[in-house]
């Protein structure tokens, strides 16, 4: 279908090579294993394929039909039409990694602008060209911290209020390093102040990681913790939701050494969990220790401004087993999408969307807190997510909400046993007041059923 040769052309090519048939080119493969019959369905036309995938996609009830109050690391936001129109351009979509800068200035400048936009947003000095997602960006912060201390500091202190899947991913990445371990994230400590992590921090601590806003949506002042972390010489790593930084003080202003986060909220579709965008920003002093690609500005032979991949001596294709990481392919197109999103919204638009999320979430929290049987679990300031204690199991409540066409919040009981019957709601600019009122009405019905 996507192979252009005619029979005549194949014949001519075989002749030029000097073999009789295509099969002759595969003589090095042991004969008994050559040309197996694959048991997969026969190929379909484009029309049939589209029809079939359309049907499969319609077997879902997505946030396209359901009213969504589910977040927990992936958020339902609006993506301006311009974002997709631009990233679909074949010149961006079907280019490889910009290893040949003379014919890749578009990708290179776009990454350079992405680096700049994220640096501005997080209040950091340097940002790399992306990781796979927020979870792997945190894991790579761990790898960097390991190398920074040359393996001499063996502890990663991580708040239990960092996304559970991020902590799991960090542990997987660390399983190759015998000496390293992750501690401090006992799930029963979620109500403790961030400073309580101090009990775990000592001279063997390589990094301390917190989330901002945390997994439960709460916004903490981390300045006391930051002091403790730096007194012990460890790296202070902050996991962010970048969209919240349209409103909130950036971690660069409270002493973060590394800011990582999930960039999905910046114009990427939910797409059932990926492809997303791993953000990684840091301070200039660590730039030679970070993983991933970096684009730098330079000039060409005629003195014209241009861009190239730089500090490549950190990377696997040059440094091999001494590289800072094995990462090669990253999330280039997703980084481009978020750069377009941030450019379109700009300083005013990002503040607006962050405030819309904030006000709507607070309206929802206040209303839900007034329903008999429900209560807000925490009293700290929050951004656009909050935890509610429910009068019965979250799965029963979510089943009921689904009957009303509402996608309920995240059931916290599995990750945090003491938060059994607690749900994490997310509210974004997509939720209208009517939708929030409908959620409250449906929740009220559940409590009345008791």
């Amino acid at each position, binding site marked *: *279908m*996507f192979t252009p*040769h005619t029979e005549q052309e194949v014949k001519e090519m075989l002749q*030029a*090579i000097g073999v009789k048939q295509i099969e002759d*080119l595969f003589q*090095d493969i042991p004969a008994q*294993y050559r*040309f*197996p019959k694959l*048991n997969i369905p026969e190929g379909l036309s484009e029309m049939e*394929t589209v029809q079939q*995938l359309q049907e*499969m996609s319609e077997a879902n009830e997505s946030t396209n039909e359901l009213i969504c109050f*589910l977040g927990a690391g992936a958020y339902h936001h609006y993506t301006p039409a311009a974002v997709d129109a631009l990233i679909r*351009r*074949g010149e*961006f979509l*079907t280019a*490889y990694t910009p290893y*040949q800068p*003379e*014919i890749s200035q*578009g990708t290179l400048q776009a990454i350079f602008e992405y*680096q700049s936009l994220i640096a501005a947003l997080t209040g950091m*000095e340097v*940002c790399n060209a992306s990781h*796979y997602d927020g*979870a792997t960006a945190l894991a790579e912060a761990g790898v960097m911290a390991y190398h920074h201390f040359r393996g001499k500091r063996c502890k990663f202190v991580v708040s239990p209020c960092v996304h559970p*899947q991020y902590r799991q991913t960090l542990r*997987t990445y660390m*399983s190759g390093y015998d000496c390293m371990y992750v501690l401090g994230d006992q799930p029963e400590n979620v109500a403790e102040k961030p400073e309580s992590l101090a009990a775990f921090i000592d001279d063997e601590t390589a990094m301390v990681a917190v989330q901002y806003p945390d997994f439960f949506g709460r916004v903490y002042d981390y300045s006391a913790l930051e002091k403790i972390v730096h007194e012990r010489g460890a790296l202070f790593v902050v996991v962010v939701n970048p969209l919240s930084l349209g*409103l*909130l*003080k950036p971690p660069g202003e409270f002493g973060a050494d590394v800011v990582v986060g999930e960039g999905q909220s910046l114009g990427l579709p939910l*797409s059932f969990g*990926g492809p997303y965008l791993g953000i990684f920003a840091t301070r200039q002093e660590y730039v030679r220790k970070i993983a991933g690609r970096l684009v730098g*500005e*330079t000039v*060409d032979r*005629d003195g014209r401004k241009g861009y*190239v991949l*730089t500090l490549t001596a950190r990377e696997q*294709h040059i440094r*091999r*087993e001494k*590289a800072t990481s094995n*990462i*090669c392919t990253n*999330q*280039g*197109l997703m980084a*481009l999408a978020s750069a377009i999103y*941030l*450019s*379109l919204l700009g300083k*005013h638009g990002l503040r607006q969307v962050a*405030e819309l999320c904030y*006000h709507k979430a*607070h309206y929802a929290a206040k209303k839900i807190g007034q329903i008999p049987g429900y209560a807000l679990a925490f009293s700290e300031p929050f951004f656009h997510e909050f935890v509610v204690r429910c009068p019965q199991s979250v799965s029963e409540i979510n089943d009921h909400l689904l009957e009303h066409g509402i996608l309920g919040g995240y059931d916290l009981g599995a990750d945090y046993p003491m938060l059994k019957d607690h749900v994490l709601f997310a509210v974004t600019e997509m939720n209208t007041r009517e939708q929030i009122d409908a959620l409250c009405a449906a929740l009220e019905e559940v409590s009345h059923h008791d």
Partner: protein
Amino acid sequence: MTEPTVFEMSSPGRCGFKFPAPDVPAAPLPQGFVRQSLNLPELSEVDVIRHFTHLSQLNYSIDGGFYPLGSCTMKYNPKVNEETARLPGFAHAHPLQPIETVQGCLALMFELQEWLKEIGGFAGVSLQPSAGAQGELTGVLIIRAYHRSRGDTRRNKMLLPDSAHGTNPATTAMAGFEVIPLPTDARGNVDLQVLLSHCDDTLAGLMLTNPNTLGLFDENLLEVVEAVHKAGGLVYGDGANLNALVGVARPGDLGIDVMHYNLHKTFSTPHGGGGPGSGPVGVAEHLVDFLPGPLVKIVEEATEEMPPLYGLVMPPYTIGRVKSFYGQFGVLVRAYTYINMLGPDGLRKVAEYAVLNANYLLSKLKGKYSLPYDRVCMHEFVLEGKWDDCPEIHALDIAKRLMDYGFHPPTNYFPLIVHEALMIEPTETESKQTLDAFADALLKIAEEARANPQVLKDAPHSTPVRRLDEVKAARDLVLCCWTPGQ
């Protein structure tokens, strides 16, 4: 003319997007947490569209022309993939929805797992890994977990041919193994004698790219695999070069224990200027319990009235999760679409024509460019970009000159075992006419190298910018068009 950056274009007060007015009362903002300044650009939608359109026009792409980048499998990316990945039911599915509401996503993932198992000859597949390098890390961590589960903690050596991609040694180090390089023999195979000398009870395994980065299928593959297995080690297959084998041979049948697939290479999902990729991992029976999860399984069998219920299951001895959620789902949809359209015959044709195209191109260039390993190649081949009679010309000069002829250069200076390497992978989607034109350009450049070497040294001449000063970029280190605090 240089395109200004979005910061340089900014005009105070402009905004490119309008949100609806708030429909709820404003809540007091959190005291002490509100940021005072946000230095993002201020642009209109037209500004943004034109800017990024201009940037895109500075790129070379598959849609624009031939991209014979060795080891990268830059084949044409069917446009229908972009449509299916954007079907609203897929694009707007939240990863944490109740499984009953996302059966379409799970069914697609389940079938893709099954297809990849069948194509690779494996007993289990996890779709979780995000890209090739993460698939490698996953595979090597699985090898580690397997040995440890048997109390076999002494195995700390990982053998790597010297032709391996840089990701292999980097991955090996991240997984806590010692890297033992293996030399390549005169025919381009793994040096079997050296391999045998390392086969003892400290051997964890071998990471093997086959066909290797010279584009050659290892003639002793079965002996190599047997030697590693006999010593108690496992064989990791780097699936980067699966385009040569898809439908033609199954790595699992050849004795490979674990392998990653590059969906963004073999299965035609676009590379996006650097990603996203997707690197599912397939394993033989003895490793299925160690796969990263969750995997998609049937949790309730189909009945006469009802389809099966798909759910998410963590394998019992899993190495853990390697990312959040389940994989690069949008990329999975594209690969599923592609396999669905090709079927078994179409997939076989992929490998056949990829290998045909490489050998045809090789036949046209052999003699004018030196070929260090003269054998029938698979999907790619490596030439030397240098001649004794014009020593000032390097592979880099040839690569840059190709741009003036309208082609993307091949991979150069890799694999490391070939001096001045030019690694050429045409892929199956290129026509004979394109291959002929490319060969003509390379032959012309070989003449120019003698007649007018300066034109190569000064190349490229016709690109948006000319050769860039990489030393300056690393020395002056300007990584940001906006400096915090200014």
